[in-house]
């Protein structure tokens, strides 16, 4: 098994190192790093804007570039947290707690250096996990019929909506709302237009780019306009020479990095628990097992190393269920899955065998991209720090232009621009009512496939709902669903201690005027 993995990986490097692909991978991580640094911009909006521009490209460079934006943004996000105490990227919010005190002590450079090392270790482990686990998952998933696919999606949808932040009930409501938005358009089997209200442009369904940019672009700008405070740049002075951590710091940070990596890679495997949860859990764990917990929050280097390592390992691991099963774990993955579908690639277990160039090329590009990011971040840190001072009043109008032209370029259709605006207003109303828009995108992307498989499995069983329980794998997934709901009810009734502790850590994170959408 190891030898085949190595041959496949070798092939992947061949794909990823083609000059054309390498260029787009570089472009992706560069853009990702850039938007990661900018407060108020996130990978979701960026990937949606870039998506229409990839329509004319081959699928391989397109996917390499879009993925590069995602993990590239994670390298940039930490800079904002450590130097400015601005948790504008949710996975890095917890890094503020110890990163900013370190900056105040003049050790911001060391913290950034440790972050880069932790990031690389975490990412490397995440990628290795993907190399070995994804083909294994595929071998299991190839036995799935429509009933199993259906219940597996149900697990993904439920986990995505209940394990994310905020009220689980509202999360589930948003998922169902997303499924309903996914229904808009012509029915696949009969061609009957549904929820189109006579608008011809809606017959093809709601455009994924319009949905993502409305919810994560326009709604986000409406939320942050005139609410952002001036950025405090007093401490943000870092030179290259400050970035090499001392031996003592490295020694202190080594084990937290390893533990963070493990926690992150575990979180990646549970659908719905992305990098944000991984970073909070690992910080809480590290604080708990530390011999000197009182140092946390006052500039402990472990408090930077551990969450960063787990964020990065979870980010890479996030790709596993998406690429091997076709079930996205969070918003970014839902978008990438949408990108695959637009490029004519059917997501699911057959992806690895039918599109080996995409899968193994992607994995190889992760290595290349991460090395590029390490190289990019050390000498260019001065430039990134300068970028931090770009005020929001210049950022959001420019971003609005990108939103408009990005949506227009998808179909060369002005209707989509208006659609995005309407979705943006709806998104803002939902946001004010404490609804999180992430599950909407999950439901939207999975909706059509869920309906297709649901109909097919009941057609096969001649309308017998018991088919979902009688097939063992499907019954197993259903049991997980019941467990998920049961756990939520338990938490709601009992409010266990772990959650209280996590809430306490969350409360320490400085409030951000940027909403959580950016992640």
């Amino acid at each position: 098994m190891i030898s085949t993995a190595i041959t496949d990986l070798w092939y992947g490097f061949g794909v990823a190192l083609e000059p054309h692909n390498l260029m787009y991978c570089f472009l992706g991580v560069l853009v990702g790093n850039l938007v990661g640094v900018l407060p108020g911009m996130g990978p979701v909006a960026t990937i949606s804007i870039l998506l229409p521009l990839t329509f004319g490209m081959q699928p391989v460079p397109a996917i390499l570039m879009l993925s590069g934006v995602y993990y590239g943004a994670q390298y940039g996000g930490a800079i904002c947290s450590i130097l400015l105490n601005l948790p504008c990227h949710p996975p890095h919010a917890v890094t503020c707690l110890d990163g900013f005190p370190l900056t105040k002590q003049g050790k911001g450079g060391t913290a950034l250096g440790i972050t880069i090392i932790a990031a690389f270790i975490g990412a490397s482990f995440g990628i290795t996990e993907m190399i070995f686990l994804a083909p294994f998952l595929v071998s299991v998933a190839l036995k799935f019929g429509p009933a199993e696919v259906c219940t597996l999606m149900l697990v993904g949808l439920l986990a995505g909506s209940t394990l994310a932040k905020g009220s689980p009930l509202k999360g589930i409501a948003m998922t169902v709302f997303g499924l309903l938005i996914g229904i808009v358009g012509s029915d696949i089997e009969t061609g009957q237009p549904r929820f189109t209200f006579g608008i011809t442009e809606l017959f093809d369904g709601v455009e994924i780019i319009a949905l993502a940019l409305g919810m994560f672009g326009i709604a986000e700008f409406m939320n942050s306009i005139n609410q952002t405070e001036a950025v405090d740049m007093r401490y943000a002075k870092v030179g290259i020479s400050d970035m090499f951590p001392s031996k003592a710091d490295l020694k202190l940070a080594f084990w937290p990095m390893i533990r963070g990596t493990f926690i992150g890679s575990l979180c990646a495997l549970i659908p719905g628990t992305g990098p944000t949860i991984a970073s909070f859990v690992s910080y809480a764990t590290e604080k708990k097992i530390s011999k000197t917990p009182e140092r946390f929050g006052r500039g402990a280097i472990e408090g930077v190393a551990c969450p960063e390592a787990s964020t990065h390992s979870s980010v890479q691991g996030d790709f596993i269920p998406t690429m091997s099963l076709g079930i996205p774990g969070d918003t970014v993955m839902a978008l990438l899955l949408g990108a695959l579908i637009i490029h004519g690639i059917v997501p699911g277990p057959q992806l690895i065998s039918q599109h080996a160039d995409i899968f193994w090329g992607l994995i190889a590009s992760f290595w290349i991209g991460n090395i590029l990011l390490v190289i990019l971040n050390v000498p260019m840190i001065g430039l990134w720090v300068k970028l931090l001072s770009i005020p929001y009043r210049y950022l959001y109008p420019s971003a609005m232009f990108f939103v408009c032209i990005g949506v227009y370029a998808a179909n060369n259709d002005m209707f989509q621009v208006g659609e995005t605006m309407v979705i943006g207003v709806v998104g803002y109303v939902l946001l004010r009512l404490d609804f999180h828009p992430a599950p909407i995108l999950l439901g939207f992307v999975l909706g059509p496939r869920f309906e297709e498989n649901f109909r097919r499995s009941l057609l096969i069983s001649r309308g017998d709902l018991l088919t979902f329980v009688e097939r063992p794998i499907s019954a197993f997934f259903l049991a997980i669903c019941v467990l998920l709901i049961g756990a939520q009810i338990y938490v709601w009734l009992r409010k266990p201690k772990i959650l209280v502790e996590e809430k306490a850590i969350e409360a320490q994170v400085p409030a951000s005027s940027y909403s959580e959408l950016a992640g």
Partner: protein
Amino acid sequence: MTGRFKLKRDYYAGGLILLLGVGAAVTGSGYKFGSLAKMGPGFLPVVLGVVLAFLGILIAGTALGSSEPDDKKFLPENPQWFGWFCILCGPVLFIIFGTFGGMIPAIFSCVFVCALGDKTATYKSSAILAAGITVFGVVLFHYLLGIPFPLLRGFNL
């Protein structure tokens, strides 16, 4: 429940979801429902609509039972009506000027109006920003990426 009945945000939230659910179910019932073995196009919309309506009731219901105070209002503390208006005007102007004028006026008007939404912005600073973005946008989208969007309708630039 002790104390006065107070309107919490969650009642609005639950009500909105209930409304969406009922709306979806009613609209969906206009399509052919079919049976479990042979579902029509209306099956899933109706089922999902009913589930959504049920969730709406649950959301409002749990808010009723919870003792946690919810002081947040639906509108933020300092509503930015002018800012919101400017942001939403951006895409509207982009559509109007894009359809009748072309790419250059569309980009300029969109960025200019959006930039005005910020409290500290002046006409001059917004115009400079808009001009800069227009040049950048034209170079990137027209010359490099070549999206089919005439720079100025009626002129062959």
